[in-house]
């Protein structure tokens, strides 16, 4: 009797799983691989990088080599170094402190001096043609916190796949809030994505946390990743601890949102008191849960790609700024705009002793390209190209 009951129970469980199981109609297929031949000064894991669709007629990938104050551009076609933009040697006011960069074109490069709350626009003669000041005339640094006093002020940061776009005379720029992410204060601000008018210098805070995430502390999950679709004029956003993807207009009004998580995803809880108070527990919260990463609009195939990284179980707590130490197994998902954003493909990319995939991706005509680093050869960097078929 007992056996029959258990059997029925187990059968019931299986049938439930079957009903909930999602059907994914297509799959990712690797179709191509790019290889960059890095010079001795370019690390394959530079913190600042960018896909550049057209640099003097060539499709390129750029790295900011900090310490050298140079941006190096490599050809995606043949992997060779195309050009070194030595802004530090050529512009006396930019010899140190530059972090993020964004290449709009050969004559317009944006450089962020984060800790000065400034972004500079330089031309190809290395003249500073515009200084964007994000500190604001009325604000000042609070000596107790080291951060600006105003809740509206933010540090201009767009590394790690955060957003920088120039649309018309406006720059849309990601920001880091002036708050410790151990506490919920930052979740009430709208400084995750901001606009800056190049004609009037007006700054607007546009994007905050979804209501359900406000008032809680998210620790290492305090990020949003965004991309922009210029043809249909909308943004897509992926919060690190939110299963949903949001589509918004330029004012960040939500037009549409949909569930976008892989099989087996479990919601990330906010920080507990112990995780707030204890450094090791805090890091363990960040590394111990699945975390959503970058999001990409594919204009060629009308798809949205979203990355999710699996928990990182073996990490060195003193080395978490190292991208290789942070690298996790990755799940890549594709959602089809033509099918009401239905998930149409999902794949898992595992790291191994030979190499790791990194959440440093771009879309081009060939497909969705994901960075792959060969751990046995640091002079090369690869991009594996995937298509949904």
């Amino acid at each position, binding site marked *: 009797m007992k056996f029959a009951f258990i059997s029925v129970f187990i059968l019931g469980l299986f049938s439930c799983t079957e009903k909930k199981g999602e059907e994914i109609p297509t799959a990712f297929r690797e179709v191509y691989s790019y290889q960059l031949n890095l010079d*001795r*000064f370019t*690390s394959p*894991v*530079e913190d600042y990088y960018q896909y550049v669709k057209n640099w003097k007629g060539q499709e390129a990938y750029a790295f900011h*080599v*900090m*310490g*050298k104050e140079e941006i190096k551009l490599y050809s995606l076609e043949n992997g060779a170094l195309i050009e070194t933009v030595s802004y530090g040697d050529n512009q006396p006011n930019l010899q140190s402190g530059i*972090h993020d960069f964004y290449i709009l074109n050969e004559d317009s490069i944006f450089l962020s001096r984060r*800790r000065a709350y400034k972004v500079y626009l330089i031309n190809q003669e290395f003249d500073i043609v515009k200084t964007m000041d994000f500190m604001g005339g009325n604000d000042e640094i609070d000596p107790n916190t080291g951060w600006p006093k105003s809740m509206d002020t933010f540090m201009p940061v767009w590394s790690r796949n955060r957003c920088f776009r120039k649309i018309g005379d406006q720059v849309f720029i990601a920001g880091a809030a002036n708050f410790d992410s151990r506490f919920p204060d930052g979740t009430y601000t709208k400084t995750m994505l901001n606009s800056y008018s190049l004609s009037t210098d007006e700054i607007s805070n546009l994007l905050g946390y979804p209501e359900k995430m406000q008032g809680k502390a998210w620790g290492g999950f305090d990020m949003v990743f965004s991309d922009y679709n210029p043809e249909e004029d909308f943004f897509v956003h992926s919060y690190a601890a939110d299963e949903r993807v949001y589509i918004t207009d330029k004012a960040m009004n939500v037009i549409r949102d949909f569930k976008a998580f892989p099989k087996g995803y479990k919601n990330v809880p906010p920080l507990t008191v112990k995780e707030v108070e204890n450094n090791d527990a805090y890091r363990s919260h960040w590394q111990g849960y699945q975390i959503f990463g970058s999001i990409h609009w594919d204009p060629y195939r009308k798809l949205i790609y979203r990355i999710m990284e699996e928990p990182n179980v073996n990490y*060195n*707590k*003193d*080395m978490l*700024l*190292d991208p290789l130490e942070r690298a996790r197994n990755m799940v890549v998902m594709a959602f089809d705009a033509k099918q009401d954003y239905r998930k149409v493909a999902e794949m898992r990319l595992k790291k191994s002793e030979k190499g790791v995939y990194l959440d440093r991706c771009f879309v081009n005509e060939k497909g969705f390209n994901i960075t792959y680093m060969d751990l046995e050869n640091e002079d090369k960097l690869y991009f594996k190209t995937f298509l949904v078929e």
Partner: protein
Amino acid sequence: MKKIVFLLILQGFLALSCSERSSGDDITLVYLESILKKPPLISQRYIIVSDYSCLPCREDIYQKIEDKSSEDVYIILALRNKAVLEDQFHDTILEKRLYLDSLEINKKMVFFVSQAIRVYHDGDGWVNEQIE
């Protein structure tokens, strides 16, 4: 008999206090010795910093290395970009005031620092101090 016991206790105490000061028992000193290829000098201060510590944490230290104003000996471990550091601190490396752990000895010894540390001998023993 009492004398022997006293001498034994004294010997034990001395052995213990010696071991606190000896490079053989402190992973930091063992690490320093592996990098310097000789025991650390009592008259010298050493600064150990990770290239993966936060930027403000390492910025001041790198500035001091670059200025050549400091008489400390520096060790940078967990290198982000060995070539850039070699280029930036070429002279200081030649002067043996800076050592780059390009062989990742720290990893083999499971020795990591997230915040820079200052290592020096205060007359009684070796001291490890976190640099704020």
